[in-house]
């Protein structure tokens, strides 16, 4: 290797994968590293040029020289590894985005409304989430008569429900069972999470 650069092929890709790893360890979505991705893509083009010129040089000399073959192998290995790392980085981010999407029960607008979070996504990732949401909505639609498949699956229901009596009219509230118009004197069996704030505000009372 004639390169005077102390950096080796693949170092940048390693950095990229380390970012994915850090993201997993800290359980956060790091900002999309556009600069690094672009630099690696440039390295890929550079490697491709090196391969092409090595092949051209070889064609000139007609016979396979002992120095060219290892060089070709090296370039090719670097290219494949870089590409893997690039794709792994993007795939890992998609997984994280999907996790966040499901953690919010499939509420995409709420996810995208978080400006701080959104600034860490690439525009393509926002597009991905939108289209993913469309596909999941289709999937959810198949079960919508019975249940919402996007609701939580982390804890089995134990104390999920509270039997409440309406003390003061508080209008129409969205719950897992659909919209409920809470009118004074009625009783409801509702998800505690849906109406917790209403108990606190004194609209409902647990029976």
């Amino acid at each position, binding site marked *: 290797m004639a390169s005077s650069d102390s950096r080796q092929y693949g170092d940048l890709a390693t950095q990229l994968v380390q970012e994915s790893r850090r993201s997993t360890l800290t359980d956060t979505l790091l900002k999309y590293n556009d600069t690094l991705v672009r630099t690696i893509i440039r390295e890929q*083009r550079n490697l491709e040029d090196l391969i092409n010129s090595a092949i051209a040089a070889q064609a000139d000399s007609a016979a396979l020289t002992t120095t060219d073959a290892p060089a070709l192998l090296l370039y090719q290995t670097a290219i494949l590894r870089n590409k893997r790392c690039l794709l792994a980085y993007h795939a890992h981010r998609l997984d994280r985005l999907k996790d966040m999407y499901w953690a919010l029960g499939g509420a995409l607008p709420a996810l995208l409304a978080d400006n701080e979070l959104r600034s860490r996504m690439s525009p393509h990732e926002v597009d991905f989430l939108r289209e993913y949401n469309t596909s999941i909505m289709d999937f959810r639609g198949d079960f919508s008569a019975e249940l919402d498949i996007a609701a939580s699956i982390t804890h089995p229901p134990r104390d999920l429900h509270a039997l409440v009596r309406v003390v003061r009219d508080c209008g129409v509230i969205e719950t897992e*069972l659909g919209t409920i118009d809470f009118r004074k004197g009625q009783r409801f069996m509702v998800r505690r999470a849906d109406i917790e704030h209403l108990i606190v505000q004194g609209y409902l009372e647990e029976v």
Partner: protein
Amino acid sequence: MPPRRTLLDDDEDFPMAGALTRAAAAAPDPITLDFGAPPETLFQQLVRHWLNERHAPDILPVQAEVLGALLDHIRRQTDTVQALRGDPDSSEAEHVRIMLVQTEVERVKFVVRSYIRTRLYKIEKFARYVVATPEVQEKLSQTELDHAKRFSQLTENHFRVSVLQALPPHQQGLDDNTPFTPPMASEPDKSHAVIVHAREECPPVRLPDGTTMQMQKGQIVLTPYAVVEQLLAVGNVELI
């Protein structure tokens, strides 16, 4: 004999020794010994398939019938509960009963949801493999298959616009097949270890080292998934 059998079926406290001789007299088939065990309810079946699905590295065949029947049941129960709850004359005791039914419905829903989501997770993980493999597609419901296709397309597009289209033409493929590296589309790892509980006496299976293993009813073993794949499909065993 038939009226006698009916009587036996209902009598759960029948002494074991007596049951043994009687059952043996009625039929030599040892399966008759199980006459005391009630058949699995729909929900128990789903719980079994749910656990299997959660523990298996591969996508298992969708339990469309069990799922469909349970979803119908959930809908009927929810409607009934809705009607009763809307009735202002419902007494306190009825409210308690409604609560019990609803809690149960929620528990069933939880399992259904988890079952569907477990499958969804695997389907997305192996989306490219699913799309490329017709045998796997048969294990999916139409809804799942549609999603798998869309998802596979979606990720491919994302990779293309984010990375691949900027690379030289030679490097743009998504299915590089190079020696010494794993394939680019993830596939289920069937050598994954699973803990298996035999629900009944199983036909012998061949282990990776060439020997055979025969599980007795109730036996629990740790084995690669591939070994018990067939037994699981038939229902001889369950994963725990």
